[in-house]
């Protein structure tokens, strides 16, 4: 047996090995193109994500700016009435009375305004106004519930209480 031919195809060819090579050569690898997966294009996804991020940032900035711009008119409405009161004899300095709810607020605000215009006072005013509003809402809710209980007693039994 010629080992050289079996090893590196040099030297005297071995007829048996050649015969085997010829027969088995039909099973040899036939080149075929390799279909590599397409490269994923992340650009559209990145663009969408960046757009969303920008939109969220812009919305946040806009809301912040808007809230800052809206604060001064609330102060102006309280502290600077457009027209003086119609009865100067009774209350010459007071602005026009719009409602009974605003009366103590405006009075207390006037006192505070004369002392200082610090933000602490403004915050207290806002809290007071909020408490009044919440109280009014609670009273309204209770009244509505009472009316509903009287008009639709069966339905109310199975419902959770609101407020």
């Amino acid at each position, binding site marked *: *047996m010629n*080992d050289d031919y*079996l*090893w*590196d*195809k040099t030297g005297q060819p071995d007829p*048996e*090995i050649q*015969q*085997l*090579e010829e*027969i*088995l*050569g*039909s*099973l*040899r*690898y*036939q*080149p*075929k193109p*390799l*279909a*590599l*997966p397409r*490269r994923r294009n992340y650009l559209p996804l990145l663009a969408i994500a960046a757009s969303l991020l920008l939109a969220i940032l812009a919305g946040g900035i806009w809301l912040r700016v808007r809230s800052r711009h809206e604060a001064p008119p609330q102060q102006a409405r309280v502290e600077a009435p457009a027209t003086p009161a119609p009865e100067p004899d009774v209350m010459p300095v007071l602005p026009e009375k719009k409602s009974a709810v605003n009366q103590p607020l405006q009075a207390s605000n006037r006192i505070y305004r004369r002392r200082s215009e610090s933000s602490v006072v403004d915050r207290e005013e806002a809290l007071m106004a909020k408490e009044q509003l919440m109280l009014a809402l609670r009273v309204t809710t209770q009244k509505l519930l009472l009316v509903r209980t009287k008009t639709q007693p069966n339905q109310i039994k199975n419902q959770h209480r609101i407020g």
Partner: protein
Amino acid sequence: MYATADMLLTSTPAHAAEQSQEPAIEVVLVRAVLQGDREGFSRLYELYAPLVHGILLARVPRAEVDDLVQDIFLHAFKKLHTLRDEAAFGPWIAMIARNRAVDFYRRSKETVEINDDIRGSEPHDSRAAEILEVIRSLPEAYRETSVLRLVEGMTGPEIAARTGLTAASVRVNLHRGMKLLRQQLGFMEGL
């Protein structure tokens, strides 16, 4: 253009690396692929497809080999970044092929009939399939080197370079495998 076994003989990376200090071709190609060069992987495929084909042919039914070759290279393309030594691409993909052959039988143990698949329609194919069956019956150590040598037409040094085995091991495996094959193919005169 695709590389045949003869082309591989002239462009064996190990030989080229021995002759010069330049890195072997697969090292250059692996680095190129890792940097985004897809053509580089096509070249690697051309160089190593016969090796993977031979390894699979020694283990799984012929009808499954071509698809598995494609699967293995696609898997290698995705996992190439896990290859630590670029020069070891051959042994790495050879190991993937062997593992995939094991997985093939693990997954389709009850559905595959090897004998039916490997028989061809042509008489020449039929004879080749019979001899391949005999090769497959050899001990595992001789099976792979025999197929790579006799079917894929690779030389011993080339098999050693591509699979990462030592030249001495390949030589011994080839010699003993051929001896066993001759004994079992006692009908060689009638071929």
